[in-house]
């Protein structure tokens, strides 16, 4: 293995083990460590992210979308937007890609959420980090109280993890709500129709003894946060993630800060209370 301890920019080499077409423009890659030892010792916590690279194109940042309880591999889901994500789209089974991480903080499942109710809210591809927590939580289902999952996308076609959504819906003790933006509902749609904030208000998960975990595009978060607060959620118990542009992921390159916080190190997970204290530069 070439990833030496001293070169903090050296990635693990990973094999692309599975490619899943999630939605137009969105794919999930399952990556196996080429070095089995590294794979065995690799551990992360839900909410953390990494830098994925296509050699020759560069690096880009995604959260780790697989559950922290699943060992030996990691998954990432990405949307193609630029140079690296386009190149990542062209990789084939068995190709080598780079990964370094895990970086950043995480959702405090073990520290805080265990033993309480939890409401997951995902918007668009923002379901990726939430999925990691959902699986981490569902794999240890007995350690949590009520679980609610609310997921919204622009249209039914654009929903990610379609097969898993069905699985979650069927799970005992899981309240699952899916929704699409008005107009995004195909004939025979069995979910809700409406923007996520509206649906959250309608579903009105109880704030009692509950934590909320919310991820999505900045605009979605902006409009959903007030709804949660209105429902009575404690700002200290609402967790969300910021996605600032990153290059190093480890507090060196200087581009991810929001005010005095480096999102790559003190984030990407923030509580609503912490967000409020930051300047609106995200």
């Amino acid at each position, binding site marked *: 293995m070439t990833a030496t301890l001293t*070169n903090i920019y050296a990635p693990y080499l990973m094999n692309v083990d599975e490619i899943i077409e999630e939605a137009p423009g969105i794919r999930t890659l399952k990556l196996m460590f080429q070095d089995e030892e590294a794979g065995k010792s690799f551990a992360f916590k839900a909410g953390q992210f990494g830098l994925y690279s296509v050699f020759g194109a560069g690096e880009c940042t995604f959260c780790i979308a697989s559950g922290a309880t699943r060992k030996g591999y990691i998954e990432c889901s990405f949307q193609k937007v630029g140079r690296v994500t386009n190149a990542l789209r062209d990789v084939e089974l068995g190709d080598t890609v780079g990964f370094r991480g895990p970086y950043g903080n995480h959702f405090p499942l073990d520290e805080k959420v265990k033993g309480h109710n939890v409401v997951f809210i995902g918007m668009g591809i923002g379901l990726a980090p939430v999925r990691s927590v959902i699986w981490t939580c569902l794999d240890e289902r007995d350690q949590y109280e009520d679980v609610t999952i609310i997921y919204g996308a622009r249209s039914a076609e654009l929903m990610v993890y379609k097969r898993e959504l069905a699985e979650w819906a069927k799970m005992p003790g899981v309240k699952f709500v899916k929704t699409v933006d008005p107009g995004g509902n195909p004939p025979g749609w069995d979910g809700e129709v409406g923007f996520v904030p509206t649906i959250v208000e309608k579903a009105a998960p109880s704030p009692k003894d509950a934590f909320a975990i919310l991820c999505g595009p900045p605009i979605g978060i902006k409009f959903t946060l007030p709804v949660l607060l209105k429902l009575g959620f404690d700002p200290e118990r609402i967790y969300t993630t910021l996605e600032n*542009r990153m290059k190093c992921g480890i507090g060196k390159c200087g581009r991810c800060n929001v005010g005095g916080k480096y999102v790559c190190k003190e984030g990407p997970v923030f509580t609503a209370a912490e967000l409020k204290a930051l300047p609106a530069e995200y």
Partner: protein
Amino acid sequence: MATIITAGNLTRLAGELMKAGCRVIAPAKLDGMVVFKAITDEHEMLPEGEYILPHSSFKEFVFPRTECILRYRLGEQGKVSYEATNLDAEPAQAAIGCRPCDAASLPILDKVFGWDYRDEFYFKRREKLTVVSIACSRAGERCYCTSVGCAPDSKAGSDILLKKTAGDKYVVEALSDKGRQLAEKHASLFEKAEGEPPVEVVDLKPAFDVEKIKPWLDTHFEDPLWLDMAARCMGCGTCAYGCPTCHCFDIVDEGDLRGGCRLKNWDTCAAVLFTKHGSGHNPRTSQEQRYRQRVMHKFKYYLEKFGLRACVGCGRCSNRCPVGQDLYAVLKTIAERAAK
């Protein structure tokens, strides 16, 4: 008893070091400019009286403008291998004749490159660097080290500090093990003098009270002053690239179908693309926001995080800005506002 080195022996020291395989970084002429250069002849080193502050800082020698962090090879069927850059073979280096402000930038850079994850690219070069600085007996128009808590004879970051005394000689103060080792190794170049020879250090009065800056920044993230102060900034990288303490970088891959390099390149918060998301969303859309980041980062965020300001008051950003954006004036304005 004081230790002394003559100007002539300082030049000889550069020569001896070079002979021993050390890279000597010294102020030297380049066209009309005085720059820090890896000299090849000790006489390239300018006499201390001929410059106040070299044009750019010596940070290039610990944090190059571009450097390869790993070399990759693209193999058959999508297989890739790579070799991480190893800097163990880098030569020892000595910066001779730099100023205390430049030296003081090193402990500042140590913080960001060392917190939690240790950036070996910086530290390997840093550890191999011995800093011999000369206290300033003159100051430039935009020298304001004393205003930001630094000084013309401050010791931070120097391994040896020289202070000018009569007869083209310098009083030597070895400040670290590295400095003492260097002085011992080249002991024949140093001499002893009776008592404490008087030294010449410029008396530079602070122009504003730096303690007032952070409290003002704490409460004025939004303020019309930013627009007034920063509208002229046009977002180049001149201030950041010349600054001894700026440390932002980009990571890019460059190569062909067979392989290439992953590079770490200087970058700057003044650039539009610096923070732009893949989605097109940009947290800092205007130049005022970007300039505010510069000031906030140096005088608030860095201080909060690492206990040091990310500015040594060298004045390079003011001197080099193509449109005359003057950090000194900005800070002075802020300090005055804060005093009201």
